[in-house]
């Protein structure tokens, strides 16, 4: 049977992993290529590269790094950040990305998802949504979570899937960075509403949070996190062992 996926996310700015990371035994690593190789060897099922550079010089550095990574790492790579046009899809897919995630770009341009899905297939298009509760309503935020939109999250995500998004990354702003666990209520609302894979993001503080997520919500397919992996608070091999010991089907390496 298909396995649940564990996905580290690398925020990349000016060609380096933001903040850098410090692994015991690996020293200080801020090269995205090295980090990607390391995660792949630890059993990460997929990697997300998030481009947080604004400048065009930075963009070029980012695609160079993507190319370098895709030459060495043979697991699926998803790329996000600054994807506003079908040409942006083309730019990163040519450099070795397998999937492309869109966020603000899909809010600004409603044609982006259907056009990209038509050209590259639904499996290539990921809708990533930053969602926060506002007066008890799940609202979509744009621009990296800084700007509130008028969009109600569940209906927005459903519309994106109907338009051709083949996967959903749901990032809860409410739990992000709190390290108290994933936002199970929000994830349930979304995973009950769509029939494509849902990737949970925001809030994981320890390995048990992934176990609770996948035990409680069987419709969630994957857990994504950044800093807890980067700082070695959760080690992917140990996380997968914990999940496997508790009856969650994960890929052994």
């Amino acid at each position: 049977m298909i396995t649940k996926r564990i996905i580290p996310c690398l925020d990349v700015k000016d060609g380096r992993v933001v903040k850098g990371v410090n692994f015991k035994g690996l020293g200080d690593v801020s090269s995205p290529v090295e980090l990607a190789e390391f995660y792949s060897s630890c059993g990460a099922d997929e990697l997300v590269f998030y481009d947080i550079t604004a400048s065009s010089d930075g963009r070029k550095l980012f695609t160079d790094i993507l190319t370098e990574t895709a030459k060495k790492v043979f697991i699926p790579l998803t790329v996000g950040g600054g994807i506003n046009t079908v040409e942006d899809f083309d730019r990163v897919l040519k450099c070795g990305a397998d999937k492309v995630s869109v966020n603000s770009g899909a809010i600004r341009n409603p044609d982006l998802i259907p056009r990209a899905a038509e050209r590259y297939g639904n499996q290539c298009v990921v809708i990533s949504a930053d969602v926060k509760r506002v007066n008890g309503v799940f609202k979509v935020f744009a621009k990296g979570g800084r700007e509130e939109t008028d969009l109600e999250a569940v209906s927005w995500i459903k519309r994106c899937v109907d338009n051709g998004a083949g996967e959903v990354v749901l990032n809860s702003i409410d739990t992000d960075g709190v390290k108290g666990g994933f936002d199970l209520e929000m994830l349930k609302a979304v995973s009950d509403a769509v029939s494509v894979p849902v990737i949970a993001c925001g809030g994981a503080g320890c390995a048990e949070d992934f176990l609770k997520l996948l035990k409680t919500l069987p419709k969630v397919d994957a857990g994504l996190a950044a800093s807890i992996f980067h700082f070695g608070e959760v080690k992917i091999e140990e996380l997968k062992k914990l999940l496997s010991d508790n009856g969650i089907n994960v890929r052994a390496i």
Partner: protein
Amino acid sequence: MVSIVEYGVGNLFSLKSSFAAIGEEVRITGDKDELLSSERIILPGVGAFGDAADSLRANGLDRVLLKAADKGIPIMGICLGMQLLFDFSEEYGHHKGLGLIPGGVKPISDVIPPELKIPHIGWNALSFGEKKHPIFKNIREGDFVYFVHSYYGADCSESTIALTEYGAPITAAVARGNVCGCQFHPEKSGEVGLNILRAFCAWDGR
């Protein structure tokens, strides 16, 4: 020299890189003479069956592949490339394939329980049955590979060399003579996938 068939379908960067990573000389080509003089051929593919089959025919590559198969050159189809080896596909209509593997390509929704998601996307385990095909000599039963597909090879039990389980047994790989195919993506399946490509590169097609 491994040749990856270029026919205007999909992105071949990772596939090419994966052969480079295992130290194989590799080129992407749609040239008839280059293909027929290759030691082995990879038929890639993503997207819809009908478009891909049309594109192969428009370039005369269907005949080149049949000739290569006839010459005994080891050929591996990957994902949609595997499906193209079959007699036909029912994806959006009825389309003729290369006919190198007997059987047809049908929607997985025909055989899997309705609550399972489509596409079948993610890592799933391989099982080999009684006899392990040479392309799997470097890997073990139960090893995981990466799948992304909504259609599958049906009525091909004679040629099936690996299955995976997704609410029902699903064809994961097929072979007949010097022609084989993987529904999954070896170039996205980590070390297991590279080990399958290594074994393919060591396979004499028998």
